């Protein structure tokens, strides 16, 4: 059954339902008990408009770090930098070399993006991770926060408690967020609130995402990869056929290592955890 047919099934089955009369009456009666609401709304709208215009007309210079991020994102892939990485092991190594510390590369599968490349940029000292899906490329620049402060001068946007500074350049948005010792600058052809949501979610998830390397002896890794990618909570999967291993990134809030192993066992694959980074 294709998606259009499914849509018709849903609409035929669930369209035309009637809400309980008591719910309808309750909601409407509560609306009528708010006579001052509309006056307050009108006043609030006027104040918001005045404040908004003031903020909008104020000029905002772009900090050099953000400017460089816009340019590097637009220039795209490998350009005078080290060769691109693909596996999470290589991403972790490149990040460690660039930043001198072990930093978790943000997991964006929930947002529909996979990391496709990372490279170091010796002149700036940052590592540039490129994510992509079928429609969009997204850059994450990570730099040691001791070498670069959180750029100010953008619009402050708070997403789910995560504070970000947001900039715009044409169709591109940039979002700067400080995560402990690392400053991250995200750039993409997205609206600023959308990119702030992506960056904010990545920060919220940071402490929950875990990586494990599984060995699946004697098995083709393609079906293992497919099974894992269909498991709720698994962020990403990278098979390393030469080693007979598969590296799994997963959200610890939604699935545990035991559950991942159970899913594979259910399908006839006996997997053994080698721990984080295969150690």
């Amino acid at each position: 059954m294709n998606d259009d047919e499914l849509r018709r099934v849903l609409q035929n089955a669930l369209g035309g339902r009637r809400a309980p009369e008591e719910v309808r009456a309750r909601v409407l009666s509560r609306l009528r008990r708010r006579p001052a609401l509309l006056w307050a709304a009108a006043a609030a709208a006027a104040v918001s408009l005045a404040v908004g215009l003031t903020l909008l007309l104020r000029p905002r210079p772009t900090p050099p770090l953000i400017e460089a991020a816009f340019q590097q994102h637009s220039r795209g892939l490998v350009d005078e930098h080290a060769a691109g990485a693909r596996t999470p092991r290589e991403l972790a190594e490149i990040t460690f070399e660039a930043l001198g510390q072990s930093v978790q590369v943000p997991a964006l599968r929930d947002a529909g993006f996979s990391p496709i490349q990372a490279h170091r940029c010796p002149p700036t000292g940052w590592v540039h991770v490129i994510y992509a899906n079928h429609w969009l490329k997204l850059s994450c620049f990570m730099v040691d926060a001791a070498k670069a402060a959180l750029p100010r001068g953008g619009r402050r946007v708070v997403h789910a408690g995560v504070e970000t500074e947001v900039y715009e350049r044409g169709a591109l948005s940039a979002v700067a967020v400080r995560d402990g010792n690392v400053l991250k600058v995200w750039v993409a052809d997205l609206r600023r609130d959308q990119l702030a949501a992506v960056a904010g979610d990545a920060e919220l998830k940071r402490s929950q995402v875990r990586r494990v390397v599984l060995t699946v002896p004697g098995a083709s890794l393609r079906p293992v990869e497919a099974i894992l990618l269909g498991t709720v909570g698994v962020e990403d999967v990278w098979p390393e056929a030469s080693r007979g291993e598969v590296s799994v990134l997963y959200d610890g809030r939604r699935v545990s290592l035991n559950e991942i192993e159970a899913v594979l066992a259910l399908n006839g694959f006996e997997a053994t955890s080698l721990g984080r980074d295969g150690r």
Partner: protein
Amino acid sequence: MARWRSEFEALLRAHFDALYFAALDMSGNAADADDLTQEAAVKGLRRFDTFVPGTDFKAWMLRILANTYIDLYRRRRRERPAGTEDAVEALAEAVASLRPADLEFLLPEDIAAGLGRLADEQRAAIVLVDLHGLTNQEAADALGWPLGTVNSRLFRGRAQLKGILRRAADDHRAIGKRVT
């Protein structure tokens, strides 16, 4: 102002069923649906000055409702641990997909129940886009997600739902429970 409120109320009455069931389908329980509908109605009344007469009031209110739902969802998501059944069932139900012949073995309540078994994010996307006709971009704006996220959640949610409904139909077929 009184005329403004009565205009809003008239529009709300005309689309109340859709709004309430969108809240119920997204939240999965009547208590939350009541609260969500109430809160969305109050927000809609507050923002009625931004509604352009003659445009789609239902879509406008659904966006407000979705925004309200996502606030509730985010507050609760952190409190809910991962469940074993989710990982296992997500796999099992993704394997076999729904066929037109399976509809003979499914009642509307089976379909509603199937929708209720999806992950929250997937269910919200399917309710807004497939059930209530918002575009993918409108759903993305309402839920505060990137468009790519909506697209991937729709893709996975539809696949999951087809698997869940196929399994329900197979179970009914096994006991001879045909509905048409």
